[in-house]
């Protein structure tokens, strides 16, 4: 059944079916195979509902909405002008700024999808204009957004901590090192890319011009203030910060800048709803598919055959890495963590691995797998929001996957990348 499921999914995907069909077909085959008929398909519907229902997902449509309002109006442009005033003259400066903004926003908002939209949305056209190739831009945005998994607060780490009984505070700190290392690698790659493709730079801004840019960006600087100050200041949850951004964007664009009328507001809300639906039906169908994988205990079957008990520390870490990477290529990260962590827990303990290190490696693999084709929410979100073909969204991915996997390997051989800060903070 396993081969029938994955085979059918890949074939339907390649034939050009709407993306929900491979996912629905995968779960259909599973349900029919497990229950010997259609009798339990109402549970498949239940799981589709369960997939789209979580309260934290509300941040996604809210950030899509806010970003769309900001981009149609002036807020986004003014913020980007401010960034350009400081980095426009540097080779690869805009790309590095984009990677940094994605990392920071993703870290704070806790939602990689929201990051793709809120940061990638406004910055992508500016990068295009600056001369970057679109598939580089898309891959940069999607992969930088996924660094968010590693930098606190991270939902993936919280779930791992709860399921494995590991200190969440320690996990949070351990994620920072690898997260920054990845950002560094992405920045270096962006610089090399800009040099090799001869991306032009802008003339260096004078301090007077920079002052002007700051002045013009004063109102829109309220957005980072709301997101960062609001969330770390304990005023908003990430979801609420997203809604606050919507409200603030409406105030700016409708009242302060007078850039948006009610008709445009309606069109923006409708377009947000449309993008949300297109992505969320895939989230729902993906949840139904995850259910099948979980119910049929497919991971247990596969992993049971590998004989992980015989391996040493490195063998276990590599097996875990591969399992999570492959799992997240097809299934939602949270579900993968929930299913896999208990399976691996005994062997992790048996070979004496630090659960914080394991958690960091798992979180990294989850981030990599989520940005890796064929299935991934961030990929779907990028397709829906940027209206670019699937292939183009994933075409620029390989160098990024390579860098991420290098960090994963480094982490296995040099755990101090993750544990240094932890040991420092907790006095180990």
């Amino acid at each position, binding site marked *: 059944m396993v081969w029938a499921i994955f085979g059918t999914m890949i074939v339907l995907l390649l034939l050009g079916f709407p993306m929900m069909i491979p996912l629905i077909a995968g779960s259909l085959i599973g349900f029919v195979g497990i229950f010997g008929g259609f009798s339990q398909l*109402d*549970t498949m519907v239940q799981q589709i509902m*369960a997939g789209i229902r979580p309260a934290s997902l509300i941040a996604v449509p809210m950030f899509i909405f806010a970003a769309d309002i900001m981009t149609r109006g002036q807020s986004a442009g003014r913020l980007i002008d401010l960034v350009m005033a400081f980095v426009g003259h540097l080779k690869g400066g805009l790309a590095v700024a984009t990677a940094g903004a994605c990392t920071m926003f993703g870290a704070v908002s806790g939602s990689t999808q929201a990051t793709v939209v809120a940061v990638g949305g406004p910055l992508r056209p500016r990068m295009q204009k600056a001369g970057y190739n679109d598939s580089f831009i898309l891959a940069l945005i999607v992969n930088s957004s996924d660094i968010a998994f590693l930098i606190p*607060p991270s939902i993936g780490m919280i779930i791992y901590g709860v399921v494995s*009984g590991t*200190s969440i505070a320690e996990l949070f700190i351990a994620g920072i090192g690898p997260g920054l290392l990845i950002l560094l690698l992405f920045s270096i790659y962006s610089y090399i890319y800009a040099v090799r493709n001869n991306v032009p730079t802008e003339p260096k801004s004078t301090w007077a011009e920079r002052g002007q840019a700051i002045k013009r960006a004063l109102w829109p600087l309220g957005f980072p203030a709301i997101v960062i100050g609001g969330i770390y200041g304990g005023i908003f949850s990430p979801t609420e910060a997203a809604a606050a951004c919507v409200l603030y964007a409406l105030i700016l664009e409708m009242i302060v800048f007078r850039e948006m009328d009610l008709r445009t507001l309606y069109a923006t809300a409708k377009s947000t709803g449309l993008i949300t639906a297109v992505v969320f039906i895939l989230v729902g169908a993906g949840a139904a598919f995850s*259910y099948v994988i979980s119910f049929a205990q497919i991971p247990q079957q596969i992993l049971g055959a590998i004989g992980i008990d015989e391996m040493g520390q490195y063998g276990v870490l590599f097996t875990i890495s591969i399992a999570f990477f492959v799992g997240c290529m097809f299934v939602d990260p949270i579900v993968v963590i929930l299913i896999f962590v208990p399976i691996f827990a005994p062997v992790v303990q048996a070979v004496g691995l630090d659960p914080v290190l394991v958690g960091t490696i798992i979180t990294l693999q989850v981030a990599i797998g989520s940005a890796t084709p064929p299935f991934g929410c961030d990929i779907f979100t990028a397709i829906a929001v940027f209206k670019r073909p699937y292939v183009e969204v994933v075409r620029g991915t390989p160098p990024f996957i390579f860098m991420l996997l290098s960090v994963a390997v480094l982490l296995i051989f040099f755990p101090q990348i993750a544990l240094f800060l932890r040991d420092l903070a907790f006095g180990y």
Partner: protein
Amino acid sequence: ETWRYAFEEALEEVQGKFAQKFKEEVEANSDHEIQLFPFGTLGESADTMEQAQSGILQFVDQSPGFTGALIPEAQVFFVPYLLPADQDQLVEFFRTSKTIKELFPPLYADQGLELLTMFPEGEVMMTTTEAVETPEDLNEVKFRVMTNPLLVSSYQAFGATPTPLPWGEVYGALQTGIIQGQENPAFFIESTKMYEVTDHITRAGHNNFTTAVMANKEFYDGLPDEDKEVIQNAIDAAFDYIVEYQTGLTEESLAKIMEAKPDMTITELTEEQREPFKATAEAVEQEFLEVGGDQAQEILDQMKADLAAVSEGGGEAAEGEAATEDGSTAEGEAAADEAAMETADEAEEAAEGEETGN
């Protein structure tokens, strides 16, 4: 045959321990195999409950609080200071309660479920960023509770601002200060690391987290008698096991917390300090009677009778259970009638009060 059993916690938490023991017993005494599905692997609590109703799962563990959306009477377990703080009395209540053995099963049966047992998971404690000794200390405190009207009223009555929040956001919200408190049993505070983001644990003794194990009714009714017996025996064995397992679990969990975070303060409120908290229970009880469904009154009365029985006859019953069984039942019934009359009077008074109050 393979049977599937889903529960709301991780494998190494109380529900998971119960499920593991149940699996072990069933597999040792029959040819059946049991697959365990911990928290989240088949969806949330409400999802697995529906799957048990539709027969995809044979067994499910769901806390009555979550069952409230389906069986409103089950919310009785959220009425504060109803269950005894004393562990022996509590266990005796779960063993003997007529409410659980006789009144609840038909309500669960209406939902296609066979109620196999209910068991306590541990005393519910508050973890907060500021110390709590009186209800006044909860003023302005945004306190995370499950989305349940009775929990909301309980904490409103305590003076806090109840703030429902999805479980996944609680840790982060405590860390950034959106909320300043939440409640759970000690083992759960330990395993979910809630102590990392709060500084005080308060034992007000207001409740004990209760949970229920059910089977799909059609499945269960269709089983041959020997299988039913295997299941019942396994449930009994798992119940005994979990009672044993829990002895000291709370203290162990608290000790682990203190080890991980030495500057955590744990305060057990004195009887005197609990009085003002207890005084608020009456209002929540009234609310239960309003939202607790058709049989709310009956359930509450019987529950009080059961509890009266264990608190009065507790010591003797423990010594010579078989000999005094008949006697204590009679006692229980007498107490039930008394309690029923009392609450009826109280309800009347309250109703009058409300009328004149408005």
